[in-house]
């Protein structure tokens, strides 16, 4: 019956001028403001959608929103390296996030369940190490990979595996802390009863703990994927040849070199690439907000 009650309340607000004024002063003005904010937030996104549908595909011709609607830009992507870059990005992001989850979960499990000497010191050390951004050491990473590449070309410059390894190196600190807190919320009695039943520590980890911590695994996987997806500096330095580029490196080349002519391709490419990310983000909003407030920021 609350609906009717609210309905009559609103009717009353409509009928009495004083109440209507109050409604306008306290609530009503928020709708125009919301429209303003939505315009601020959405204009670039609407613009890129419109530009992606504009068959002329140049920057200058994209300004009149939805003046022409056509999917030729999307079709033209097939003639470029776009889909190769998508594949590379998915591969690098996918492997890096699976690796980050496994390593982080194993680390968090060890810190949460075992008491060993040096535990506190290693936790503190981990915390300190992860404060220093890996990207700042890009010169050293570049030179180190040059050296490794002379011996193991598969892990040198221009190797996707090398880039994944670099991402994994930066993954342990923050992820372990994110997961460590979550692992601690799983009662240790579960482990203990399983241990009495004769389960090994590996069985406890894989069969008992991992299913229970799935939510945090998903969050860490997503954050690691987004970080790899958005990274430019390391990907640009490590991946040299065009068929190894990720989306960030490739699309930067499109926009920086031939801004006016490749604009339609860029727009179509970014719409295609962002729709899955948007969908994922919106569906996992709740968890991501939780993850964000625990200290990670957009990468």
């Amino acid at each position, binding site marked *: 019956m609350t609906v009717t009650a609210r309905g009559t309340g609103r009717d009353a607000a409509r009928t009495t001028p004083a109440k209507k004024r109050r409604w306008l002063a*306290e609530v009503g003005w928020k709708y125009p403001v*919301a429209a303003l904010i939505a315009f601020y937030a959405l204009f670039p996104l609407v613009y890129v959608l419109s530009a992606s549908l504009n068959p002329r595909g140049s*920057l200058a011709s994209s300004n009149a929103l939805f003046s022409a609607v056509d999917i030729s830009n999307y079709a033209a992507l097939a003639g470029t390296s776009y889909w190769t870059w998508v594949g590379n990005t998915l591969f690098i992001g996918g492997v890096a996030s699976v690796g980050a989850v496994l390593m982080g979960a194993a680390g968090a499990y060890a810190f949460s369940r075992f008491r060993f000497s040096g535990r*506190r010191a290693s936790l503190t050390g981990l915390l300190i190490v992860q404060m220093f951004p890996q990207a700042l050491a890009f010169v050293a990473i570049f030179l180190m990979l040059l050296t490794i590449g002379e011996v193991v070309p598969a892990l040198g410059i221009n190797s996707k595996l090398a880039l994944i390894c670099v991402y994994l190196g930066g993954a342990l600190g923050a992820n372990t802390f994110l997961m460590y807190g979550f692992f601690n919320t799983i009662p240790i009695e579960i482990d203990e009863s399983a241990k009495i039943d004769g389960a090994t520590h590996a069985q406890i*980890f894989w069969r008992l703990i991992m299913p229970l911590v799935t939510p945090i695994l998903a969050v860490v996987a997503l954050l690691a994927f987004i970080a790899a997806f958005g990274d430019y500096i390391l990907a640009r330095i490590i991946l040299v040849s065009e068929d190894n580029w990720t989306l960030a490196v490739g699309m*930067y080349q499109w926009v920086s070199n031939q801004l006016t002519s490749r604009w339609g391709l860029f727009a179509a490419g970014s719409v295609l690439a962002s729709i899955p990310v948007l969908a994922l*983000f919106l569906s996992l909003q709740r968890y991501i907000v939780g993850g964000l407030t625990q200290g990670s920021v957009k990468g």
Partner: protein
Amino acid sequence: MSVTPPVAPPGAAPTAPARLRESHARAWRGIGVGFLVKLVIMAVVNAFGILTILTAVGADSWLLASITAVLLIVADIVYFTRRALPLKYLLPGLIFLFAFQVFIFGYTAYIAFTNYGTGHAGSQSQAVDATLIQGERRVDDSATYPMAVVERLGTYGLAIADDDVVRVGTPDEPLTTVDGEIGASGAPTEVSGWTVVPRAEVLTDPAVQQAAAALRVPLSDDPNDGALRTRDGSTATVYTSTLVWDEQAQTITDTTTGTVYTATDRGTFTSADGQSLPTGWYVNVGFENFLRVFTDGALLQPLLSVTGWTFAFAILSVVISFGLGLLFAMIFNDPRVRARKFLRTLFILPYAFPAFMSALLFRGMFNSEFGVINDVFFFGLPINWLGDPVLAKLAVLWVNVWLSYPYWFLVCTGALQALPSDTLEAAQLDGAGRWRSFRSIVLPLLLVSTAPLAISSFAFSFNNFTVIYMFNNGGPAIPGAPYALGSTDILISAIYDISGVSGGAADYGLASALSIVVFVVVGAISALAFRQTRKLEEFA
């Protein structure tokens, strides 16, 4: 409770309780799947590790070989003994952490004290080799051998017939004598351990042709002996350098001019009249890279402006987007507003759009000639957003605020909903107005939970390479600045320009020195955050 576990005799294995140990024997059900998986993984790891050690030894990369050996031994000990249980879980992560995080920090510090960069890119022996190669000429009476191009595992080499002996070598390995057969044409037709590339293929396949023309096989370990090269794909000629390296005297002598270049402690070969050979090696230069920043006026001036802008950008980004997010959160944290969930989704869409694409998108939108912003909002005025230092700064701030206000909107919405309502009511009863209760109650309570996030967000903006570089490459260029520094460059993008990793002249030493300085700044900021969050308490 009736079952009493048998008490372990004193002094017996302290690691596992005796009861468990007994059940191990009874509960033996053969080798488990887990063990087999572990065995396979460890076999692959060992195979890869040993292969790496062998190739590293072959390439004289002793550091890499010994690091790999140590890691391999540690891994085998950890996974094939019953001890060090926590390490079984921590080791893979720790290895990556040490190799790609801890080690590179140390390596950065090491490079910061060298003059590593263009002209100083390797060790002294590499510099000698490179210099002698550059001085290599074909001497008129030099020896010529019938030869064949050979291939093994994608590596090309040269095989020559030296009288009736077959000798083979690659660019990395000097000539050695091997078993083989010499054909009717006088060239080797069969070389033990190698595949002879047919002559027709050498002459017709452009890839092989190119590889053969680029081949340079040293005669011996002594760079003065010269090297074999081929022009026609059928004969190899000895090329010797006009430069002669004297390791004892540490000099290189140009035999055509008679000039003597002496090795200096600056990592160059310099002649008496001050001429240096183009290729040098890197040496320790002490604090020179750090001092250069302060002594080189042309560098100091732009770097100071970059540093100032880095702080301004990071602080303004956080303050403006925090303020905007908080404002929006307060406005729409009102149960009387309908469709709040829908509005919230609209407001945070910029956050879900990948950041690098937003920066590229705005790069086009702010274009002065064709951009939609001038065209639609400024009546087609050609405002030079990206070319004017002040406007470019405003524009990149605008972009970053657009990108990050949704984060603060989300965080503040959550924090506002967690505020204790009774405190607010009490304030209201005491007659506090909206502003007063915001300033004295809401904001302080909110800051408790958001300040650590603000600090980490500041540290993130401080190093937000992607947005700066994608939006405008850090441009417009500061006139007269060395290393292509620009007005919107922040420290990390300036370091990127200076380092030259993307091509052009490189100065790894100076770039690393600046990285160290930024590390210190970031470390100080993080220490602040560290104290704020007191995360340590969580595991106390």
